[in-house]
């Protein structure tokens, strides 16, 4: 068993857990966490695809794609969290007034 196979299967399992929970959890913050787990699972598969048995160096293109993905994901996360905060503020106003 080589590391790429082990971590590829782990990445798939993480993706599956995120996919299942994103569709079944009620709290918005948990759904965002579940979607982030999906993204990490997908990143695992890209990194595994880039892996070569050392001493051969890994393929840098998937690595660059995942770095781009991480930055896009933190951007999406920040917007989602701002929306969750806004919804919470509006709900609080509605229940107060």
């Amino acid at each position, binding site marked *: 068993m080589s590391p790429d196979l082990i971590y590829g299967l782990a990445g798939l399992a993480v993706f599956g857990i995120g996919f299942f929970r994103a569709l079944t959890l009620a709290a918005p913050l948990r759904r965002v966490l579940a979607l982030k787990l999906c993204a990490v699972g997908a990143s695992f598969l890209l990194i595994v695809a880039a892996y070569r048995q050392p001493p051969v160096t890994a393929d840098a293109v998937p690595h660059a794609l995942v770095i781009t993905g*991480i930055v896009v994901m933190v951007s999406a996360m920040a917007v989602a969290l701002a929306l969750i905060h806004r919804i919470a503020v509006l709900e609080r106003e509605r229940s107060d007034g």
Partner: protein
Amino acid sequence: MDAMLVFDVALALALVGLAWAVLAAEDLFAAVVLFIVFGLMTALAWVRLAAPDVALAEAAIGAGVTGALLLATLRRIGGAESAETTPRPVLIGVGALAAAVTSGLGAAFLAAPAQGPGLEAAIAANLAASGVEHPVTAVLLNYRAYDTLMEVVVLFAAVVAVWSVAQAPEPATPLLGPLHAGFARVALPAAVVVGAYLLWAGATMPGGAFQGGAVLGAVAILALLARDYVPAPAHRAWARGAFLAGTAVFALVAAGVGFGPRMAFEYPPALAKPLILLIEAVVTLSIAATLAALFFGREPEPLGVEVEARK
């Protein structure tokens, strides 16, 4: 070799267990802390898969900055959750769907050719002309620079969206105690050096604009928490300039080299390294400012408004 196999299997099992625990944790705060641990373990796994650049980015941005954003949001919305539970038939149906999708992906993964030739030969053949010696930086800032420009645009769009959505003043964050404030005083200068080093090192070894920017963004977040820096409305113009600078300089350089026989993004080989370093330096500062602004979560408001909200 066998010891490493045991390590890999243990880490893979820990990752799957942590992923489950993040979403099963009773308390949202515990979920966020487990998520940060999961991010760091992911970075460790990616080091094992010979992807140190991505591991650095995941540890700094995926676990660090994302964790800070989550904790800040949790403080703002409070940890209370609705008692709403998913009906059992939906759980079973979605569970079956998730199992089917995951096993389909698993079959595709196991059938796919492993360790097949990718683009590494093309990367190595053109590395001398790219202006940098590190393949990942060459891909990010030269071969696929257009992707990276779009990524900087996405980050810019995120801060625009966050500033537009969250305008409500909020309770001030509690002051850090003397121990934390002292830690910030010691850690800040060291972290600035680490961030700048990561940026510089990116040309020849793992590191680069995104990792360096994330570390400098963490510096700014620590400065915000320690009240070493208090955002004021007068700083808005500077902040907007900092958010836009990365996109603007990147786009100007990319378009600027595209005259005569050259296309946009086609740096002249002699100027490739200085141009890439210029783009990386400005993008690093832009990323740091943007990540800190995303953490702060709103436009800086006049001091009076904040005092009003604290009552």
